[in-house]
Protein backbone atom coordinates (compact mmCIF):
# COMPACT_ATOMS: atom_id res chain seq x y z
CA UNK A 1 0.00 0.00 0.00
CA UNK A 2 1.00 3.57 -0.58
CA UNK A 3 2.70 5.47 2.17
CA UNK A 4 0.52 7.98 3.93
CA UNK A 5 1.40 11.63 3.59
CA UNK A 6 1.27 13.09 7.08
CA UNK A 7 2.39 16.30 8.69
CA UNK A 8 4.34 16.37 11.95
CA UNK A 9 2.49 17.44 15.06
CA UNK A 10 3.49 19.64 17.99
CA UNK A 11 1.84 17.01 20.20
CA UNK A 12 4.55 14.49 19.33
CA UNK A 13 7.07 13.47 21.94
CA UNK A 14 10.73 13.71 21.02
CA UNK A 15 11.41 10.37 22.72
CA UNK A 16 12.80 7.74 20.35
CA UNK A 17 10.03 5.53 18.98
CA UNK A 18 10.06 1.77 19.39
CA UNK A 19 10.95 -0.23 16.30
CA UNK A 20 8.25 -1.35 13.87
CA UNK A 21 9.16 -4.93 14.81
CA UNK A 22 8.51 -4.24 18.49
CA UNK A 23 5.26 -2.40 17.88
CA UNK A 24 3.88 -5.05 15.55
CA UNK A 25 4.90 -8.22 17.38
CA UNK A 26 3.93 -7.38 20.96
CA UNK A 27 0.19 -6.77 21.08
CA UNK A 28 -2.79 -7.29 23.31
CA UNK A 29 -5.61 -7.93 20.86
CA UNK A 30 -7.49 -10.72 22.57
CA UNK A 31 -9.73 -11.27 19.56
CA UNK A 32 -6.71 -13.08 18.10
CA UNK A 33 -5.43 -14.87 21.20
CA UNK A 34 -4.06 -14.35 24.68
CA UNK A 35 -0.36 -14.11 24.02
CA UNK A 36 1.49 -11.03 22.87
CA UNK A 37 2.61 -12.78 19.69
CA UNK A 38 -0.84 -14.18 18.80
CA UNK A 39 -2.23 -11.10 17.03
CA UNK A 40 0.71 -11.00 14.63
CA UNK A 41 0.34 -14.71 13.97
CA UNK A 42 -3.45 -14.76 13.57
CA UNK A 43 -4.64 -11.36 12.36
CA UNK A 44 -3.54 -11.88 8.77
CA UNK A 45 -6.87 -13.35 7.68
CA UNK A 46 -8.86 -10.32 8.82
CA UNK A 47 -10.66 -8.61 5.94
CA UNK A 48 -10.23 -4.85 6.28
CA UNK A 49 -11.42 -3.78 2.86
CA UNK A 50 -14.26 -2.92 2.47
CA UNK A 51 -14.68 -1.26 5.85
CA UNK A 52 -17.19 1.20 7.16
CA UNK A 53 -17.96 2.81 10.47
CA UNK A 54 -21.50 3.18 11.69
CA UNK A 55 -21.97 6.47 13.48
CA UNK A 56 -25.17 6.82 15.44
CA UNK A 57 -26.91 7.85 18.59
CA UNK A 58 -27.11 11.54 19.40
CA UNK A 59 -25.71 12.86 16.10
CA UNK A 60 -27.19 15.05 13.36
CA UNK A 61 -26.01 12.83 10.49
CA UNK A 62 -26.14 9.19 11.54
CA UNK A 63 -25.21 6.52 9.06
CA UNK A 64 -22.67 4.11 7.73
CA UNK A 65 -19.51 5.98 6.77
CA UNK A 66 -17.14 4.20 4.35
CA UNK A 67 -13.55 4.16 5.60
CA UNK A 68 -12.16 6.51 2.94
CA UNK A 69 -14.89 8.95 3.85
CA UNK A 70 -13.95 8.69 7.54
CA UNK A 71 -10.30 9.30 6.69
CA UNK A 72 -11.24 12.48 4.85
CA UNK A 73 -12.52 14.05 8.06
CA UNK A 74 -9.17 15.77 8.63
CA UNK A 75 -5.62 15.76 7.19
CA UNK A 76 -3.39 12.95 8.45
CA UNK A 77 -0.80 13.88 11.05
CA UNK A 78 2.07 11.95 12.53
CA UNK A 79 1.60 11.74 16.30
CA UNK A 80 4.48 10.18 18.18
CA UNK A 81 2.88 9.23 21.47
CA UNK A 82 3.93 7.45 24.61
CA UNK A 83 1.81 4.33 25.06
CA UNK A 84 1.39 2.90 28.56
CA UNK A 85 -0.25 -0.48 29.05
CA UNK A 86 -2.11 -1.26 32.27
CA UNK A 87 0.26 -4.22 32.58
CA UNK A 88 3.07 -1.75 33.38
CA UNK A 89 4.99 -1.82 30.13
CA UNK A 90 5.28 1.02 27.68
CA UNK A 91 6.35 1.97 24.18
CA UNK A 92 6.69 5.09 22.04
CA UNK A 93 4.65 4.80 18.84
CA UNK A 94 4.59 6.97 15.72
CA UNK A 95 0.91 6.85 14.80
CA UNK A 96 -0.64 8.37 11.70
CA UNK A 97 -4.05 9.73 12.49
CA UNK A 98 -6.35 12.67 12.89
CA UNK A 99 -8.33 14.11 15.79
CA UNK A 100 -11.46 12.15 16.62
CA UNK A 101 -13.19 15.50 17.12
CA UNK A 102 -13.02 16.12 13.35
CA UNK A 103 -15.06 13.01 12.63
CA UNK A 104 -17.51 13.73 15.43
CA UNK A 105 -17.95 17.27 14.11
CA UNK A 106 -18.73 15.86 10.69
CA UNK A 107 -21.39 13.62 12.15
CA UNK A 108 -22.69 16.59 14.15
CA UNK A 109 -22.78 16.01 17.90
CA UNK A 110 -26.14 16.82 19.45
CA UNK A 111 -26.11 18.91 22.64
CA UNK A 112 -27.46 16.03 24.74
CA UNK A 113 -24.49 13.77 23.95
CA UNK A 114 -22.30 13.26 27.02
CA UNK A 115 -20.38 10.10 26.10
CA UNK A 116 -18.99 8.31 23.07
CA UNK A 117 -19.24 4.53 22.81
CA UNK A 118 -16.94 2.52 20.53
CA UNK A 119 -17.24 -1.02 19.27
CA UNK A 120 -14.73 -3.38 17.68
CA UNK A 121 -15.59 -5.65 14.79
CA UNK A 122 -17.32 -8.89 15.75
CA UNK A 123 -16.41 -11.53 13.18
CA UNK A 124 -15.62 -14.89 14.79
CA UNK A 125 -14.87 -16.46 11.39
CA UNK A 126 -11.81 -14.24 11.13
CA UNK A 127 -11.12 -13.48 14.78
CA UNK A 128 -10.19 -16.82 16.26
CA UNK A 129 -10.59 -16.01 19.94
CA UNK A 130 -14.07 -14.50 19.65
CA UNK A 131 -15.55 -17.57 21.31
CA UNK A 132 -17.72 -18.06 24.36
CA UNK A 133 -14.88 -20.06 25.89
CA UNK A 134 -12.70 -16.96 26.04
CA UNK A 135 -14.73 -15.59 28.92
CA UNK A 136 -15.00 -12.18 27.25
CA UNK A 137 -18.35 -10.85 26.12
CA UNK A 138 -17.62 -9.91 22.50
CA UNK A 139 -17.55 -7.54 20.76
CA UNK A 140 -15.01 -5.44 22.63
CA UNK A 141 -16.47 -2.08 23.63
CA UNK A 142 -14.99 1.09 25.05
CA UNK A 143 -16.11 4.59 25.85
CA UNK A 144 -15.00 8.14 26.52
CA UNK A 145 -16.59 11.17 28.06
CA UNK A 146 -17.45 13.67 25.34
CA UNK A 147 -14.80 16.17 26.46
CA UNK A 148 -12.18 13.42 26.41
CA UNK A 149 -13.34 12.40 22.94
CA UNK A 150 -13.17 15.99 21.67
CA UNK A 151 -9.72 16.62 23.18
CA UNK A 152 -7.09 17.36 20.50
CA UNK A 153 -4.80 14.61 21.81
CA UNK A 154 -7.45 11.97 21.12
CA UNK A 155 -6.97 10.58 17.64
CA UNK A 156 -8.25 7.92 15.30
CA UNK A 157 -5.17 6.21 13.88
CA UNK A 158 -5.02 4.50 10.52
CA UNK A 159 -1.27 4.31 10.10
CA UNK A 160 1.99 3.49 11.76
CA UNK A 161 5.48 4.54 10.72
CA UNK A 162 4.02 6.16 7.62
CA UNK A 163 2.29 3.02 6.38
CA UNK A 164 -1.26 1.77 6.80
CA UNK A 165 -1.87 0.25 10.22
CA UNK A 166 -0.99 -3.46 10.45
CA UNK A 167 -3.94 -5.69 11.36
CA UNK A 168 -2.47 -6.72 14.72
CA UNK A 169 -2.37 -3.06 15.71
CA UNK A 170 -6.06 -2.49 15.02
CA UNK A 171 -6.40 -1.92 11.29
CA UNK A 172 -7.93 -0.20 9.58
CA UNK A 173 -8.99 2.31 12.22
CA UNK A 174 -8.35 2.49 15.94
CA UNK A 175 -8.60 4.93 18.77
CA UNK A 176 -5.51 6.33 20.51
CA UNK A 177 -5.93 8.12 23.84
CA UNK A 178 -2.36 8.60 25.02
CA UNK A 179 -3.04 9.62 28.64
CA UNK A 180 -5.06 6.48 29.34
CA UNK A 181 -4.05 2.86 29.71
CA UNK A 182 -3.78 1.11 26.37
CA UNK A 183 -6.96 -0.94 26.68
CA UNK A 184 -9.00 2.27 26.22
CA UNK A 185 -7.52 2.67 22.75
CA UNK A 186 -9.97 0.31 21.08
CA UNK A 187 -8.97 -1.37 17.83
CA UNK A 188 -10.66 -2.11 14.48
CA UNK A 189 -13.60 0.18 15.14
CA UNK A 190 -16.90 -0.47 13.34
CA UNK A 191 -19.29 1.55 15.43
CA UNK A 192 -19.31 4.92 17.20
CA UNK A 193 -22.37 5.91 19.20
CA UNK A 194 -22.99 9.20 20.98
CA UNK A 195 -24.91 8.60 24.19
CA UNK A 196 -26.26 10.39 27.19
CA UNK A 197 -25.41 7.67 29.71
CA UNK A 198 -21.92 6.26 30.31
CA UNK A 199 -21.47 3.28 27.98
CA UNK A 200 -20.26 -0.12 29.23
CA UNK A 201 -16.61 -0.95 28.66
CA UNK A 202 -15.26 -4.46 28.26
CA UNK A 203 -12.68 -4.42 31.05
CA UNK A 204 -14.95 -2.69 33.50
CA UNK A 205 -17.54 -5.37 32.84
CA UNK A 206 -14.96 -8.11 33.37
CA UNK A 207 -13.33 -6.75 36.54
CA UNK A 208 -15.03 -3.60 37.80
CA UNK A 209 -12.88 -3.42 40.93
CA UNK A 210 -9.72 -3.43 38.80
CA UNK A 211 -10.59 -1.46 35.69
CA UNK A 212 -12.56 1.74 35.82
CA UNK A 213 -14.24 3.77 33.12
CA UNK A 214 -11.54 6.44 33.17
CA UNK A 215 -8.39 4.30 33.26
CA UNK A 216 -6.17 7.37 33.29
CA UNK A 217 -2.49 6.54 33.66
CA UNK A 218 -1.80 7.28 37.30
CA UNK A 219 1.31 6.14 39.19
CA UNK A 220 -0.39 6.89 42.50
CA UNK A 221 -3.34 4.57 42.01
CA UNK A 222 -2.15 0.99 41.81
CA UNK A 223 -3.88 -1.81 40.03
CA UNK A 224 -5.18 -4.06 42.81
CA UNK A 225 -2.73 -6.74 41.75
CA UNK A 226 0.35 -4.75 40.75
CA UNK A 227 2.01 -1.39 41.18
CA UNK A 228 1.63 1.32 38.56
CA UNK A 229 4.50 3.39 39.97
CA UNK A 230 7.00 2.32 37.32
CA UNK A 231 6.94 0.84 33.85
CA UNK A 232 9.23 -1.21 31.67
CA UNK A 233 9.95 0.40 28.32
CA UNK A 234 9.80 -2.38 25.73
CA UNK A 235 12.93 -2.63 23.65
CA UNK A 236 15.60 -2.87 26.31
CA UNK A 237 16.21 -6.53 25.49
CA UNK A 238 17.43 -8.71 28.30
CA UNK A 239 18.50 -5.69 30.25
CA UNK A 240 15.09 -4.12 30.29
CA UNK A 241 15.57 -3.56 34.04
CA UNK A 242 17.76 -0.66 33.04
CA UNK A 243 14.64 0.64 31.25
CA UNK A 244 12.33 0.52 34.24
CA UNK A 245 11.31 4.12 34.67
CA UNK A 246 8.86 6.09 36.78
CA UNK A 247 5.37 6.30 35.32
CA UNK A 248 4.22 9.88 34.78
CA UNK A 249 0.84 11.22 35.83
CA UNK A 250 -1.52 11.08 32.83
CA UNK A 251 1.38 9.36 31.04
CA UNK A 252 3.11 12.73 30.82
CA UNK A 253 0.15 14.52 29.20
CA UNK A 254 -1.00 16.22 32.40
CA UNK A 255 -0.38 19.70 31.09
CA UNK A 256 -2.91 19.07 28.33
CA UNK A 257 -5.52 16.96 30.11
CA UNK A 258 -5.37 17.45 33.89
CA UNK A 259 -8.03 20.16 33.67
CA UNK A 260 -10.54 17.59 32.40
CA UNK A 261 -10.49 15.98 35.81
CA UNK A 262 -10.32 19.03 38.07
CA UNK A 263 -12.00 18.33 41.38
CA UNK A 264 -12.41 14.63 40.71
CA UNK A 265 -11.12 12.05 43.17
CA UNK A 266 -8.97 9.96 40.85
CA UNK A 267 -8.78 7.17 43.40
CA UNK A 268 -12.50 6.81 43.15
CA UNK A 269 -12.76 7.44 39.43
CA UNK A 270 -9.90 5.16 38.39
Amino acid at each position, binding site marked *: AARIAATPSPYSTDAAPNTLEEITSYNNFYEFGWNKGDPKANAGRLTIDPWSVEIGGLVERPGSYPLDDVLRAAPAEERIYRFRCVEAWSMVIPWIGFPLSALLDRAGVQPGAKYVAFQTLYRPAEMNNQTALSGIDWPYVEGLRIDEAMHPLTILASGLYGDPLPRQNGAPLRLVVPWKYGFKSIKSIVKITLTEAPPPTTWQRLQPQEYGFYANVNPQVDHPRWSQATERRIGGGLFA*FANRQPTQMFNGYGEEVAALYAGMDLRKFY
Partner: protein
Amino acid sequence: MRKVPVGAVYLAGLAPLGWIVWLVVSGGIGVDPVKEIEHRLGKIALWFLFGGLAITPLRRFLRIDLLRYRRAVGLVAFFYVGLHVLVWLVLDMGMLWAQALGDLVRRPYLILGVAALLLLLPLALTSNTASIRRLGRNWRRLHLLVYPAVALAVVHYLWQMKVVQPQGWLWLAGFGVLMALRAVPRRR
Protein backbone atom coordinates in the same frame (compact mmCIF):
# COMPACT_ATOMS: atom_id res chain seq x y z
CA MET B 1 12.91 -47.86 32.75
CA ARG B 2 14.90 -48.74 35.83
CA LYS B 3 18.06 -48.61 33.81
CA VAL B 4 17.82 -44.86 33.26
CA PRO B 5 20.22 -43.31 35.77
CA VAL B 6 18.89 -40.58 38.01
CA GLY B 7 21.54 -38.26 36.62
CA ALA B 8 19.71 -38.33 33.30
CA VAL B 9 16.70 -36.70 34.95
CA TYR B 10 18.84 -33.82 36.17
CA LEU B 11 20.32 -33.49 32.73
CA ALA B 12 16.90 -33.58 31.06
CA GLY B 13 15.76 -31.05 33.65
CA LEU B 14 18.26 -28.58 32.25
CA ALA B 15 16.91 -28.94 28.72
CA PRO B 16 14.10 -26.33 29.12
CA LEU B 17 16.64 -23.87 30.48
CA GLY B 18 18.84 -24.62 27.52
CA TRP B 19 15.89 -23.91 25.24
CA ILE B 20 15.34 -20.52 26.89
CA VAL B 21 19.02 -19.67 26.54
CA TRP B 22 18.85 -20.68 22.87
CA LEU B 23 15.81 -18.46 22.33
CA VAL B 24 17.62 -15.52 23.92
CA VAL B 25 20.78 -16.08 21.90
CA SER B 26 18.94 -16.62 18.61
CA GLY B 27 16.58 -13.69 19.15
CA GLY B 28 13.52 -15.95 19.19
CA ILE B 29 12.53 -14.83 22.67
CA GLY B 30 10.55 -11.85 21.31
CA VAL B 31 10.61 -8.16 22.01
CA ASP B 32 10.02 -8.49 25.76
CA PRO B 33 12.60 -11.09 26.79
CA VAL B 34 12.32 -10.39 30.51
CA LYS B 35 8.62 -11.20 30.85
CA GLU B 36 8.96 -14.11 28.46
CA ILE B 37 11.84 -15.65 30.42
CA GLU B 38 10.08 -15.03 33.73
CA HIS B 39 6.82 -16.61 32.58
CA ARG B 40 8.54 -19.55 30.90
CA LEU B 41 10.55 -20.34 34.03
CA GLY B 42 7.42 -20.25 36.15
CA LYS B 43 5.57 -22.52 33.76
CA ILE B 44 8.47 -24.99 33.62
CA ALA B 45 8.53 -25.06 37.43
CA LEU B 46 4.83 -25.92 37.40
CA TRP B 47 5.40 -28.77 34.96
CA PHE B 48 8.04 -30.30 37.19
CA LEU B 49 5.97 -29.79 40.34
CA PHE B 50 3.08 -31.57 38.65
CA GLY B 51 5.50 -34.25 37.45
CA GLY B 52 6.58 -34.83 41.02
CA LEU B 53 2.97 -35.13 42.15
CA ALA B 54 2.19 -37.54 39.32
CA ILE B 55 4.69 -40.15 40.44
CA THR B 56 2.61 -41.68 43.24
CA PRO B 57 -0.61 -42.06 41.20
CA LEU B 58 1.39 -43.42 38.25
CA ARG B 59 2.73 -46.12 40.48
CA ARG B 60 -0.55 -46.91 42.11
CA PHE B 61 -2.90 -46.85 39.14
CA LEU B 62 -0.68 -47.57 36.14
CA ARG B 63 2.08 -49.57 37.85
CA ILE B 64 4.71 -47.30 36.42
CA ASP B 65 7.30 -46.94 39.11
CA LEU B 66 9.33 -43.75 38.84
CA LEU B 67 9.78 -43.32 42.55
CA ARG B 68 13.56 -43.25 42.37
CA TYR B 69 13.40 -40.18 40.14
CA ARG B 70 11.09 -38.19 42.38
CA ARG B 71 13.82 -36.41 44.30
CA ALA B 72 15.44 -35.29 41.07
CA VAL B 73 12.12 -34.07 39.66
CA GLY B 74 11.42 -32.12 42.85
CA LEU B 75 14.85 -30.55 42.96
CA VAL B 76 14.66 -29.54 39.31
CA ALA B 77 11.25 -27.98 40.04
CA PHE B 78 12.76 -26.01 42.91
CA PHE B 79 15.65 -24.93 40.69
CA TYR B 80 13.15 -23.36 38.26
CA VAL B 81 11.11 -21.79 41.06
CA GLY B 82 14.32 -20.16 42.29
CA LEU B 83 15.28 -18.92 38.83
CA HIS B 84 11.75 -17.61 38.30
CA VAL B 85 11.95 -15.51 41.47
CA LEU B 86 15.48 -14.38 40.68
CA VAL B 87 14.50 -13.17 37.23
CA TRP B 88 11.53 -11.32 38.71
CA LEU B 89 13.74 -9.56 41.27
CA VAL B 90 16.73 -8.77 39.09
CA LEU B 91 15.59 -8.49 35.48
CA ASP B 92 11.95 -7.48 35.93
CA MET B 93 11.94 -5.34 39.05
CA GLY B 94 15.45 -4.12 38.28
CA MET B 95 16.34 -4.63 41.93
CA LEU B 96 14.07 -1.78 42.95
CA TRP B 97 13.91 -3.44 46.33
CA ALA B 98 11.45 -1.00 47.84
CA GLN B 99 8.92 -1.47 45.05
CA ALA B 100 9.49 -5.22 44.93
CA LEU B 101 8.94 -5.48 48.67
CA GLY B 102 5.97 -3.11 48.55
CA ASP B 103 4.42 -5.14 45.74
CA LEU B 104 5.08 -8.31 47.66
CA VAL B 105 3.11 -7.35 50.73
CA ARG B 106 0.25 -5.71 48.87
CA ARG B 107 -0.38 -8.14 46.04
CA PRO B 108 -1.96 -11.44 46.97
CA TYR B 109 -0.73 -13.31 43.92
CA LEU B 110 2.87 -12.37 44.73
CA ILE B 111 2.42 -13.38 48.36
CA LEU B 112 1.09 -16.74 47.22
CA GLY B 113 4.06 -17.21 44.91
CA VAL B 114 6.57 -16.36 47.60
CA ALA B 115 4.69 -18.52 50.11
CA ALA B 116 5.00 -21.42 47.70
CA LEU B 117 8.73 -20.76 47.45
CA LEU B 118 9.08 -20.66 51.24
CA LEU B 119 7.15 -23.92 51.63
CA LEU B 120 9.31 -25.60 49.01
CA LEU B 121 12.58 -24.38 50.49
CA PRO B 122 12.73 -26.83 53.45
CA LEU B 123 11.70 -29.62 51.11
CA ALA B 124 14.58 -28.87 48.78
CA LEU B 125 17.00 -28.58 51.71
CA THR B 126 15.96 -31.97 53.06
CA SER B 127 15.95 -33.75 49.72
CA ASN B 128 19.01 -35.81 50.57
CA THR B 129 19.59 -39.21 52.11
CA ALA B 130 21.15 -37.85 55.28
CA SER B 131 18.07 -35.72 56.03
CA ILE B 132 15.73 -38.65 55.40
CA ARG B 133 17.68 -40.68 57.93
CA ARG B 134 17.91 -37.92 60.48
CA LEU B 135 14.26 -36.84 60.27
CA GLY B 136 12.79 -40.32 60.26
CA ARG B 137 9.03 -40.24 60.00
CA ASN B 138 9.02 -36.47 60.33
CA TRP B 139 10.56 -36.32 56.87
CA ARG B 140 7.32 -37.71 55.41
CA ARG B 141 5.27 -35.24 57.38
CA LEU B 142 7.46 -32.34 56.35
CA HIS B 143 7.16 -33.28 52.70
CA LEU B 144 3.38 -33.16 52.84
CA LEU B 145 4.03 -29.42 52.46
CA VAL B 146 4.37 -30.04 48.76
CA TYR B 147 0.57 -30.13 48.45
CA PRO B 148 -0.13 -26.63 49.80
CA ALA B 149 2.97 -25.37 48.00
CA VAL B 150 1.76 -26.53 44.59
CA ALA B 151 -1.77 -25.35 45.34
CA LEU B 152 -0.38 -21.89 46.07
CA ALA B 153 1.74 -21.97 42.94
CA VAL B 154 -1.27 -22.83 40.78
CA VAL B 155 -3.41 -20.07 42.29
CA HIS B 156 -0.47 -17.66 41.91
CA TYR B 157 -0.33 -18.56 38.21
CA LEU B 158 -4.07 -18.07 37.68
CA TRP B 159 -4.25 -14.89 39.73
CA GLN B 160 -1.63 -12.96 37.78
CA MET B 161 -3.65 -13.30 34.58
CA LYS B 162 -5.68 -10.25 33.60
CA VAL B 163 -8.53 -12.63 32.96
CA VAL B 164 -8.25 -16.35 33.66
CA GLN B 165 -7.72 -18.12 30.36
CA PRO B 166 -8.91 -21.64 29.54
CA GLN B 167 -5.33 -22.82 29.98
CA GLY B 168 -5.38 -21.59 33.56
CA TRP B 169 -8.50 -23.59 34.36
CA LEU B 170 -6.85 -26.67 32.82
CA TRP B 171 -3.95 -26.34 35.27
CA LEU B 172 -6.33 -25.98 38.17
CA ALA B 173 -8.29 -29.02 36.99
CA GLY B 174 -5.05 -30.97 36.59
CA PHE B 175 -4.11 -30.18 40.16
CA GLY B 176 -7.58 -31.24 41.28
CA VAL B 177 -7.16 -34.58 39.51
CA LEU B 178 -3.75 -35.18 41.08
CA MET B 179 -5.24 -34.50 44.52
CA ALA B 180 -8.40 -36.50 43.92
CA LEU B 181 -6.38 -39.55 42.91
CA ARG B 182 -4.83 -39.50 46.36
CA ALA B 183 -8.26 -39.60 47.94
CA VAL B 184 -9.28 -42.79 46.14
CA PRO B 185 -9.69 -45.38 48.90
CA ARG B 186 -7.39 -48.35 48.80
CA ARG B 187 -8.95 -51.78 48.30
CA ARG B 188 -8.22 -54.16 51.10
